[in-house]
């Protein structure tokens, strides 16, 4: 990574742009730690295990872009975080596609396992979860818009108040829509054969 130094009260050193709003190497290191923590919290085990390498690859890409743009508009810490998020998302998707295995078994053999099933303690549970996940997607696709959005954020882990804040609703409305949306979802899943 190209270090960026600040010289308070002095002229900026030659090389990468520096000055107010330009992240230092400490900022970049802090961002790297935050990204690794975020990847470990949100990604499947097989990706999370590789979080350090994944984040490093993504950050190098972002900093290379920054290096090429030295002298352009200031590169704030927020902008760096946003760009780093984007690069990590791209890297995750690239690794996931690379790890995809064919679903059809080879002749006379067992179907190869999905990339992350080997690392999990219960592959059958994972398989059932995926089947349920596909059904959830289909049911959400049919759901009316307000309930779809409320349930999606609820399933993402947001609390009722957060759902309301994100979607511009008061808490009571968010609660109602989550409640009714989940009822719709369960009804749809029952129709698909999932038991209550």
């Amino acid at each position, binding site marked *: 990574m190209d270090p960026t130094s600040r010289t308070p009260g002095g002229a900026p050193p030659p090389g990468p742009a520096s000055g107010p709003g330009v992240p230092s190497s400490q900022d970049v290191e802090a961002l790297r730690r935050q990204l690794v923590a975020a990847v470990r919290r949100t990604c499947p085990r097989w990706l999370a295990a590789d979080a350090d390498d994944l984040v490093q690859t993504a950050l190098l890409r972002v900093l290379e872009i920054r290096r090429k743009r030295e002298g352009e508009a200031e590169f704030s*810490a927020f902008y760096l975080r946003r760009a780093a998020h984007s690069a990590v998302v791209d890297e995750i998707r690239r690794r996931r596609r690379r790890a995809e295995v064919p679903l059809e078994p080879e002749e006379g053999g067992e179907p190869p396992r999905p990339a992350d099933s080997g690392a999990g303690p219960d592959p059958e549970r*994972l398989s059932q979860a995926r089947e349920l996940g596909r059904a959830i997607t289909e049911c959400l696709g049919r759901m009316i818009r307000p309930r779809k959005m409320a349930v999606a954020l609820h399933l993402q882990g947001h609390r009722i108040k957060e759902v309301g804040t994100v979607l511009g609703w008061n808490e009571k409305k968010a609660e109602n829509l989550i409640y009714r949306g989940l009822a719709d979802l369960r009804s749809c899943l029952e129709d698909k054969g999932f038991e209550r």
Partner: protein
Amino acid sequence: MTMTIDHDTLLREAFVARTGPGPGGPGACPAPERIYDAARGALPPGDVREVVEHLAVCPECAEAWRLAAALEEEARAAGEEAAPRPASRRPWYLQPVRVAATVAVALVAVAVVWTVVQAPEEEPVWRGDGQLEIRSLIPEGEALPREEAVLRWTPVPEEDATGTTYDVVMSTEDDPFPMAAADRLEEASYRIPPEVLEAVPAGGELLWQVEAQLADGRTVESPTYKIRLR
């Protein structure tokens, strides 16, 4: 199938375990930066809802959202500054498309007023116990023309009108899974888009229900009403 679906935890696990792009493929997905901005609340509300509606059916974008939310939490925990809010937009009256759309809506509203059947006087309704009630203003037995199927109901009192919005949900008796909805309506009426009614045969019936969201947090729900379509 042995998985039971009663518990939220199980539904959440399954939702998060989804993989792959959504319908329409990766080309239909918003850019990760847009997802990040939406998760941070740095987009206008309509744009945020668009992103959320998409991630409901797109596992990859749902994951990008979770990553953005987790990253912002980590940044906040580290004491970093909040993301900047979106730049203020041009006032609506300087946005040509919105002006044209507003004028068009006003003209349609005038046309509807001239053609609609005389309705009972629209006054708030109170139950005997002093609780506010929402009632349909469509005369019983009246069949609505599907080209101009307008649902109307009693409004909230004038002193509560500011900030009140209405949500309408519609379904048929054959399928209680709601077929359409409209939310954040500011008037006590709603013209059902004709395309929504395509699934209802001539002479068929539609169930509808309204919920008022008052500015003070109260909600008032109407009974479920039934109307026939010509």
